[in-house]
């Protein structure tokens, strides 16, 4: 089956600094999750890079080695606009220094959005966003995740 393409507008939303929750699972079908720091949608619109703090990536590593399946939920707290990407991790590597600016910019955007709904600024400024591990993900499905009727429907 061909990979769905991420539309430009959706790609801009994903990279705008939102909450990113990722889920993986082990061989016994037990899920686990963590929050990611940032995402970069590739020019082919069929793949993306998820950036996880190295501590979170270390916890995910056995699951990714077992099956590579990953889900990422992107949610903007002030509007609850959300979408879910299902994919397969095809590679991992340490994030490069050149990617650090993108990661910190998205974390700051997410923090600013949270502060609008009362999350303490002191908390968001103290987030550890580095060092990160980059997960290279091939997108398999895109789903609408904004709460309400029709949630869970395919986006592309």
């Amino acid at each position, binding site marked *: 089956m061909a990979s769905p393409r991420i539309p430009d507008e959706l790609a801009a939303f994903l990279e705008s600094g939102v*909450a990113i929750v990722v889920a993986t699972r082990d061989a016994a079908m037990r899920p686990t999750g963590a*929050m990611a720091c940032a995402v970069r949608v590739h020019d082919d619109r069929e793949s993306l890079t998820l950036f996880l703090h190295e501590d979170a990536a270390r916890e995910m590593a056995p699951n990714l080695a077992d099956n590579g399946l990953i889900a990422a939920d992107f949610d903007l707290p002030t509007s609850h606009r959300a979408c879910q990407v299902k994919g397969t991790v095809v590679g991992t590597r340490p994030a490069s220094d050149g990617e650090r600016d993108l990661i910190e910019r998205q974390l700051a955007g997410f923090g600013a959005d949270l502060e609008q709904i009362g999350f303490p600024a002191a908390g968001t400024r103290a*987030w550890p966003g580095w060092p990160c591990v980059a997960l290279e993900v091939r997108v398999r499905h895109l789903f609408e995740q904004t*709460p309400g*009727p*029709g*949630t869970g429907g395919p986006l592309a």
Partner: protein
Amino acid sequence: MIALESLTSCYQGIIPSWLCTCSAAGEPNCAILSNVDYVDSRHVALSFQFFNKSKRNIVENPHAVVRMIDPDTLRGYRLTLRYVRTETSGPVFESMRLRIEAIASYSGLKGIFKLLGADIYEVLASEHIAYEVGLPREPQPAAGATGLTFTMKALQEFGASIHDAPTLDCMLDSILATLERVFGFRNSMILLASDTPERLELIASRGYPEGGVGSEVTYGEGIIGMVAEARQPIRITGMMRQMLYADAVRRRAQEHGLCPDDRRIPLPGLPAPEFQIGIPLLARGELVGVLCIETDRSYRFFEEDRSYLEVLGGFMAIAIQNALLHERADDGDAPLPGDVAPAAPAAPAARQRIQVEWFAADECILVDGEYLVRGLPARILRKLLREHAETGGNEFTNRRLRLDRSLQLPELKDNLESRLILLRRRLEERCPEIRLVQSGRGRFRLELAGEVALAERA
């Protein structure tokens, strides 16, 4: 394993949680959650509102993980869960349902934004998360966190404020003042049953620029109407976020043509409350009214606070009901204790002419073209003004009013005293030139600072 009881602050819904599940075929899934509810030392509950992937997954494969953040310390916790069952009745379901329906009511989403079930999970493990985006490395206190201080002394002070009040009028203000002084609640209101079935009217408030006396709430509307309907306390924390969540649902519902009702019920009181609690005032099984408390900042509410507030609600209900009965029994013959009448506001400067219009069809009164009151308070004011115009009399007793058939008071439980308080306060807010000054128990004087022109309309 961290005891679930020690994570009380995490169940407030102040900071969103997330849930990870996995389908039987092995596809992981994640979703943001509004609330994780504590059930007992081994179980938590998550709301089931839509048939989404998380719901399908846990039915196929019961394993799940949830992450919660303590808003006081910003520490994160991970609970490893196993789905056990879905409840569609009982105390856990009811508590979640009322909270969700109150939010739905504010957003015009009743029937769409609703609880289908309370999914109960066994907690297999609970642990502190060492690292997470959104969590600082070093735990730190969150700004603005406050909690109740329920002590015997506080309860004693609250009781004294009720005992010392010479009249129901004074008692209502005294209760709200004590809630602020003892517990720090600056914004509160009391609504009592109106003469229209299934409707409450605001009779006393504290901490708002507009007093709002006479504002009406129908059963089932907002947190106050839901409390009246269910006769159970409801609390909502993290309101701004929950309203945003409901707004997202609303937009989706409209896209699907499912939301024809565009009516939004304005929140009572604060423009953007963060915390609201409604407490039913129940005396001998009868709903006397509702106490609503709100704050504009996050507020830590612990389960034991709920019991205290229910006790206070019961105490208040009996005190209000007793005051009503007592004032009814006195009915104009007894002076106020110590002969001290409640302080009436200073008389305003006289006006040339006050235009009062009585509309018979709606049984309402407008003053200078602005709505004043309707129903029984309107009938009472019309009678007072007419009698004053005809006889020049200005002294009235509750007993005489009660005997006047034109007022159409019900035989039992006429609530005349509370209607008079409402009328007096409404006049203070909207037309201070017409005053009802209490001159004894069950007795008052009509004072006019200007010439009243009463017009009768069909």
